[in-house]
């Protein structure tokens, strides 16, 4: 279903979507965005690659030679890692004497950039991001294979 135009546009657009998704992820605490939105967006970008290119081409794009490669093997552990990270951030706060999923925050001075806001909620959000991205990709790949 792919034409040259679609392929070219995809190549140009996908990195852009990923960058936007990441910026949404990082600005989430203060501006619109967050782990969930960024996660779905990233998944959408990769899904776009799936649709426009074939799985084989996709593998080639990422420098994977093995044709029988199935990304699921990577996504399922990623889902687990995401959940573990989200739970872990909560356990960490318990370990530090706060209650479960209680986050701390502050500002930090980074050279060249200046004052930056930080929060441990970002770790939790990263877990959300990973879980959402990988779960959606699992669904898309499984359904797409049919």
């Amino acid at each position, binding site marked *: 279903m792919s034409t040259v135009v679609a392929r070219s546009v995809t190549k140009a657009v996908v990195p852009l979507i990923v960058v936007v998704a990441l910026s*949404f992820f990082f600005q*989430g*605490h*203060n*501006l*619109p*965005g*967050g*782990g*969930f*939105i960024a996660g*779905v*967006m990233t*998944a*959408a970008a990769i*899904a776009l690659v799936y*649709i426009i290119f074939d799985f084989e081409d996709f593998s080639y794009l990422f420098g994977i030679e093995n044709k029988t490669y199935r990304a*699921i093997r990577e*996504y*399922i552990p990623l*889902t*687990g890692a*995401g*959940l573990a990270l*989200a*739970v872990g951030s*909560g356990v960490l706060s318990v370990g530090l004497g706060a209650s*479960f*999923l209680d*986050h701390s*925050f*502050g500002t930090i001075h980074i050279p060249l950039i200046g004052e930056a*806001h930080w*929060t441990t*909620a970002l770790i*939790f*959000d990263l*877990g*959300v991001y990973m*879980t*959402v991205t*990988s*779960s*959606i990709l*699992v*669904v*898309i790949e*499984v*359904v*797409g*294979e*049919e």
Partner: protein
Amino acid sequence: MNFKTCLITLALSLYTQTVTASSNASVQTGSLETAVLTAILAPFLTSAVIAVFYTRLEDYSAIIGSLSGLISFIAAISLIGKTGVVSYLWIPSMNIAAQFYVDGLSVFFGLLASGIGVLVFLYSWKYMEHGEWKRKYYTALTAFMGSMIGLVFSSNLILLFLFWEFTSICSFVLISHHQRKRAGIMASKKSLLVTVGSGLALLLGFILLGSATDTYSIVEMLSDGQALSALESTGLTTAVVALIGIGAAGKSAQIPLHIWLPDAMEAPTPVSSFLHSATMVKAGVFLLLRFRSILGEAVAWNFLLLTLGLSTMFIAALLAVASTELKQLLAYSTASHLGLIVAGIGFPTAVGVETSLFHVLNHAVFKAGLFMVAGIVLHEAGTQKFSELSGLRHDWPGLAAIGTLLSLSMAGIPPFNGFYSKELLFEAAYHTASHTGGITWILPAISVLGSVFTFIYSLKFISVFYGRKSQDLHDVPRKMILSPAILAVTTIAITATPNQFISVLVNPALELLAHTSHGLSVHMPKNLKPAFVMSLITIGLGSFGIGYLNVVERKAKKITALTALSPNKYYFKALDKADELSNRMITKVESGLLRTYAVWVLIISTVTGTAGYLLAGPLPAFQITATLPAAVVLAVSLVSVSAVLRSQSYTSSVMILSILGFMVSIFYLLLDAPDLVLTQLVVETMSLIVFLLVLNKLPSFDKEISFDRKKRDTIISAIAGLMVFLSVMYSTAEETPSKVADYFIGHAVSGSGGGNVVNVILVDFRGLDTLGEVSVIAMAGLAVLMLFKMRGVEQ
């Protein structure tokens, strides 16, 4: 040294250290906490150790289990004569604390559970030697001991309930020990349904009691003394008494909930001895004793417990006489004795409770021992049918002596300890009857009748040891006879010095009744008191009955075979009906078609939701105003909806539906909700992609749909839509911005440093919700994977 020896040495040294630590701690102040925690945790930790290291420990698990019981026993001994409360925060917002209460009663039961436990593990060592699934067996048995000890020390109702249910679960696992035998599975299912079902009644009773008295702490209820009046002011007293009574009756095998106990004999004999005679079935009794000080004055209390207890005592004794196997006889006899104990708690006089407590001790000792004796017979002779056994004393004189001694105590023959507690029951019954008069004279009459049958079945039990020798048998293993021998010695000790045991164990447990009881002491009757006369009648009638044992058995069988008297038949009938009902429901609800599921979900959520709104009161006044852009967006949405209805292919309907989705996101934009816009947009995109992927797999579009189904679907979706409309109206009716919104907006920056309040709520304030949602997403991904992959496997 190989690993096994090494591990065992390590375990032993750890245990000795804990024992010394706990006994040292007991002399220091503040030791209460250590002792209670040791008593409860030692078995649980051992259970975990056995579960993990069973392959290394093998049969030494029995020894380690026994040692953990010993630690708990020593810890409980160090608590004799002490009272106190140990409390840990758990769920403070719901009044639930991990609170333990030490007093005479809890120490009494704690000693019983751990003491019998030590002997049962020793007995299991040899008994289970050639058994299967020993890892499961020892893990569950130690976990049971821990939860039983935890149960008796619990002071919080919810904590008590948790331990209570945990004992049921351990019992379930142990009854189905022979997990490939159908009888074992049926028996464990029955016990679970009865004990957990009645446990639910108990939970309801606890919640009613807790909300009426505004506390879930038993100590607080005991100390302020207002619990009953608080309960009475709500008018729930009878309900609470009945619910707690059902819970106790289920656990303590009172009629008609006794049906699970005889079936539970499918479990290996040490389990029957431990759970189903000495400890777990006493949990109900413990509960009643505990609550007698709180609810004992209630009118329903005496009536309920006396009826329950005495009818159980009588009917179960009859069933015991009619039984054909050793363990079956002992099971019915246990139910009968529990009936005696429950009746004792129901008597308004202090003597009743004294009877119960003393009999709990006597019964635990002789019945646990008798089960062990029956187990040895079953294990060594290979049968437990009365018709196939006789004259065992020729080969096993020691076992015969132990069995006879314990049986005579069970029969209530003087001078054995069982005689004293039976005498006390008679005294309580006579006392109550002579005070109240009238119909209550039935109490002493039934007590005597029940005791006559107890006498008969006790002698029936030992008939296997006497008479003509039926078979040649090899010697009883020493390891196995040790435990019943210790229990026989204990029986002799209690018989010889009953008042010593009473003053150390029973009287402290009676403290709660201090205002009515002056401390119990028992003596051999010297003159013809009414109670002694009743004893003489019992023994006389019993001896007469024994002479005509065959006739009595036949009559008893005839009576107990009556359908009306057999709750078992009702149980199986109910089970069949439930099966039938669920089979019928499944074809209706779980048709395997997605639209059936959708219909049911929509109907149920609509009905329950509408019911909730009806209860919430009338719909608040509202007016709909819309700006021009919003009106345009809504108009486009409406157009797209009508277009979906007319569309001729899946592709076009999916596309048009996504127009609707994008309109919604524009609508959010107009309402200044950028986060929602973003979410709606990306989700809309994703669902479009997934839709397109499955599109060519869907059945053809132009399939004819019957008019009836169209009508049904239209009605259901219209009602569901109305329900969503109502939800929006109700939830936005509160004055805006609401208090919740104010709180979150006010605390977002100060509480978490984030400027985007939506995101702060997601990751910080309501982080746990998000965690749950993310888990659901992960599960959904896995479920899709499974559905697609498993389908391939099946084909």
